[in-house]
């Protein structure tokens, strides 16, 4: 068994592309190996800022002969199909194919024998094909070449069983081909000259000696351990940030985490601003004091072991941070010179959407919506909600949000607090974009709820009105997220909001229903129960709708519920079967049965039970006592069971009696369907 090692060394690969590229390389090479009939043990890939590496273990030194069978068209098929088959299988004529009876007729078969041979012979082709197919998100040409790669490609290690594979990749133009070899380079600054490797273990060890940690997982671990150690020494704790860690691990081949200090003059700038500035501009980690508050230390991860122990690097980073934060502090100081109210006119210059007007128009709509929503939100102060809606977008024209768009809302909240606006208004400004996703916090303060709902409902209604509805693959205005946001706010805070009052479009309500179904399914609610309740239609109060779903689901979990469902099914099946035979039947059995025509006690008992249940179900539903409605339905079970035991519905010689009995069954269905469409429940 032998090992195959591949390394593609290039100029610096964007951090965000490395992981995916390594996965793609592995997939493509492994597919190539399988396609060549090669079995192997394990395959692993690694990425650093300058290289993709792949090692495959357990490959055979030679490939056995393989024969592949291909089924062709039916014997006697049109010539076109026959020719296609011959061409595909590489056969000169039908004489080389076999006729076989498959049991479904006679078909042509081609048996293609592939000669085995040294594995090393097929590997170069697999490498070249994988490199051609590797889907970089963005790739480029360089020099006079025509080849595309993420950045200029410099060298290729291609070793099988310790020997260099023959082959090369040509960038085209006047450029020298990149020949397969056994050499690579180490760290850009901490290593000089070429490194020759004999196999994977040797490769990893020699790279390490040349200051390259090949495995991104190990680099992450080194960063975390080093950062935590440095933090502990300074009595702060690292604020973990998985996305940042992933990115930083893709920026360094030899990570050296170091601790820097934030200049004290910036510590009164809101911590969110400091964190965003450090992260998005500088890729620094922030730290916290023991009480969880923002600490004045940051972690920078260098890619170099400096001969002064890193003092210059830390000093340089502190300096650049100072100038970054001077900008941020400048915005913080400047922005507070105008009130949010004074900024509003500038919203007239910001187009929200070409067909939906400016942000100022949007604010006007939000105020109107907030006013309509407030009566449905217990404890929400109307004036505060309107004020919060009025000022909700003002921070879009502040310097800080211009620089850091991700701080929208957050800055509005700070500026509102600085202006001494009511805390509820400030919080609502800060909260009104939330929740931004399933893991984001959901507003819970009354004024926040009103404004956050207004923001999302406006987006939905507005984009719907201009026909910008999301499709399966396209949702550029994040309307799915907006509707899920509405659902979460309404459901988690139990807000009794009649959604129908806010939009006219039926398909928008249906869009909500779909989102709600998806969400409930994820929470483990039975989808058929959801369907059964949704099928009733006309319900635009999500809280009431969910209460009903829950009641039906718990009812169906009881024995009484299951039996009643069976009874419902029998009643419905009989009616349906008869309806199929007689198209006019539906209309004739629509009304109430006639008690005078009933012959057996069981019929009368069901009739009486239905009447009693109807008396209870109506008020129970009206008062949203869904458990009560279910309990009432449960009383139907015994009389219905008795009915099916003792009474024959289709009495052929008494048409009137038969019709009346079908009416009774239909009535069972109708009564139960008032609670949920039980026909949609799967038994």
């Amino acid at each position, binding site marked *: 068994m032998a090992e195959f090692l591949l390394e593609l060394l290039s100029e610096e690969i964007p951090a965000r592309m490395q992981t995916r590229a390594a996965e793609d390389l592995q997939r493509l090479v492994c597919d190539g190996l399988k396609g060549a009939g090669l079995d192997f043990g394990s395959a692993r890939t690694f990425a650093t800022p300058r290289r993709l590496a792949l090692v495959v273990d357990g490959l055979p030194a030679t490939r056995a002969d393989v024969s592949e069978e291909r089924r062709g068209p039916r014997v006697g098929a049109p010539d076109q199909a026959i020719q296609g088959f011959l061409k595909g299988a590489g056969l000169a004529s039908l004489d080389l194919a076999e006729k076989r009876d498959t049991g479904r007729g006679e078909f042509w078969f081609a048996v293609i024998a592939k000669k085995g041979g040294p594995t090393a012979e097929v590997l170069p082709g697999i490498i070249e094909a994988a490199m051609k197919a590797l889907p970089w998100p963005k790739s*480029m040409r360089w020099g006079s070449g025509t080849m595309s790669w993420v950045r200029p490609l410099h060298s290729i290690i291609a070793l099988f069983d310790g020997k260099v594979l023959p082959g090369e990749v040509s960038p085209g133009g006047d450029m020298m081909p990149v020949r397969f070899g056994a050499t690579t380079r180490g760290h850009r600054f901490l290593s000089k000259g070429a490194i020759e490797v004999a196999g994977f273990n040797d490769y990893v060890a020699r790279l390490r000696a040349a200051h390259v940690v090949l495995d991104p997982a190990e680099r992450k671990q080194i960063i975390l351990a080093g950062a935590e150690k440095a933090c502990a020494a300074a009595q702060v704790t690292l604020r973990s940030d998985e996305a940042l860690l992933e990115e930083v691990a893709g920026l360094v081949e030899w990570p050296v985490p170091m601790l820097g200090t934030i200049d004290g003059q910036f510590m009164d700038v809101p911590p969110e601003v400091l964190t965003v500035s450090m992260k998005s501009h500088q890729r620094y980690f922030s730290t916290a004091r023991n009480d969880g508050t923002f600490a004045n230390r940051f972690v920078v991860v260098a890619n170099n072991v400096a001969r002064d122990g890193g003092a210059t690097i830390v000093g340089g980073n502190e300096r650049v941070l100072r100038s970054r934060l001077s900008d941020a502090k400048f915005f913080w100081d400047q922005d507070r010179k105008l009130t949010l109210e004074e900024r509003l006119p500038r919203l007239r210059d910001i187009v929200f959407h070409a067909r939906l007007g400016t942000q100022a128009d949007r604010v006007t709509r939000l105020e109107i919506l907030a006013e309509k929503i407030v009566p449905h939100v217990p404890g929400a102060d109307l004036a505060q909600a309107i004020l919060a809606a009025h000022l909700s977008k003002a921070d879009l024209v502040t310097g800080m949000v211009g620089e850091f768009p991700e701080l929208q809302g957050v800055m509005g909240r700070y500026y509102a607090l600085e202006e001494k606006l009511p805390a509820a208004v400030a919080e609502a400004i800060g909260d009104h974009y939330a929740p931004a996703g399933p893991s984001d916090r959901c507003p819970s303060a009354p004024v926040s709820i009103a404004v956050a709902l207004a923001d999302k409902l406006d987006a939905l209604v507005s984009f719907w009105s201009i026909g910008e509805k999301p499709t399966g693959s396209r949702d550029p205005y994040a309307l799915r997220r907006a509707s899920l946001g509405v659902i979460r706010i309404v459901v988690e805070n139990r807000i009794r909001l009649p959604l129908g009052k806010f939009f006219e479009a039926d398909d928008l309500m249906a869009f909500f229903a779909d989102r709600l179904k998806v969400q409930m399914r994820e929470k483990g609610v039975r989808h058929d129960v959801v369907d059964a309740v949704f099928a009733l239609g006309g319900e635009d109060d999500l809280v009431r709708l969910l209460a009903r779903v829950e009641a039906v689901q718990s009812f169906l979990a009881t024995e009484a519920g299951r039996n009643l469902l069976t009874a419902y099914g029998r009643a419905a099946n009989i009616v349906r079967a008869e309806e199929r035979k007689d198209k006019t039947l539906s209309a004739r059995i629509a009304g109430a049965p006639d008690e005078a025509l009933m012959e057996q006690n069981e019929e009368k008992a069901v009739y009486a039970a239905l009447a009693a249940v109807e008396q209870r179900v109506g008020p129970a539903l009206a008062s949203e006592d869904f458990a009560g409605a279910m309990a009432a339905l449960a009383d139907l079970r015994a009389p219905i069971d008795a009915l099916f035991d003792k009474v024959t519905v289709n009495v052929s010689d008494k048409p009137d009696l038969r019709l009346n009995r079908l009416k009774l069954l239909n009535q069972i269905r109708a009564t139960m369907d008032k609670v949920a469409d039980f026909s949609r429940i799967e038994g």
Partner: protein
Amino acid sequence: MTEPSARVVPTCFQELILTLQDYWARQGCLILQPFDMEMGAGTFHTATTLRALGPRPWYAAYVQPSRRPGDGRYGDNPMRLQHYYQFQAILKPSPTDILERYLGSLEAIGIDTSLHDIRFVEDDWESPTLGAWGLGWEVWCDGSEISQFTYFQQVGGIDVDLVSGEITYGLERLAMYLFDKKSIYDLPFNRTDSEVPLTYGDVFLQNEREQSAYNFEHADTDMLFRHFADAEKECGRLIERRLPLPAYEQCIKASHTFNLLDARGVISVTERQSYILRVRDLAKACCETWLATQTAKKAA
């Protein structure tokens, strides 16, 4: 082969320029002078925009005064200018060792890579007005951006024949880093031990104040709108006459006039896009016409 340099590590703004010129001259670059018209970046120089197109190799380096009217701060902001200098090197086709050559230029200006942390951070470059884009990096030194590095892929909407490697140094920012100054205006322009030592502020502070006032308050917008229309028209006329070089100058003029109008705040958000597209159309036409002259000559 490159010859050794007689230059020492720069200690002031002008020595930084001299060192870079000397270094890139030794890499085989023509040392050109600034283009004598207002432009937003060194990329607009014909030595980059037009020469990046066509089949002929081209190595050049030059300083380009760059004007960004909207970045004026009346001399109040220690880190922002409406007029600043870029140093640009363009190597077409990009040689295999271009990154090593670039790192050599850092050593030449006194950045010791055994003390600093140099990083290549993804930054794809795009110029909507030039219809140009490329892939490359921002180069960071201890977290500070000290250069932009781009492999041009398209210019004027045309795929390039040979890929140029373009290196841009923002000279003021780089000098602030090298000479450890918090304000641009404190940078030593010449050596502090010169007979007449002057700072960047001595040379340019008044200019920043006056030009900011012009850009934001006094530029005659009616006149500028006329200039834009005239330049656009003239450019089109010259394209018809197959004179890409003069036509391109009108394109540059239109682009800068647009930047001035933009700084005056008289172009709305929706108009803005259409102005950018109008300039891009001019640039595209110039590039296409220029390319035709290049291909024709090669054939002959």
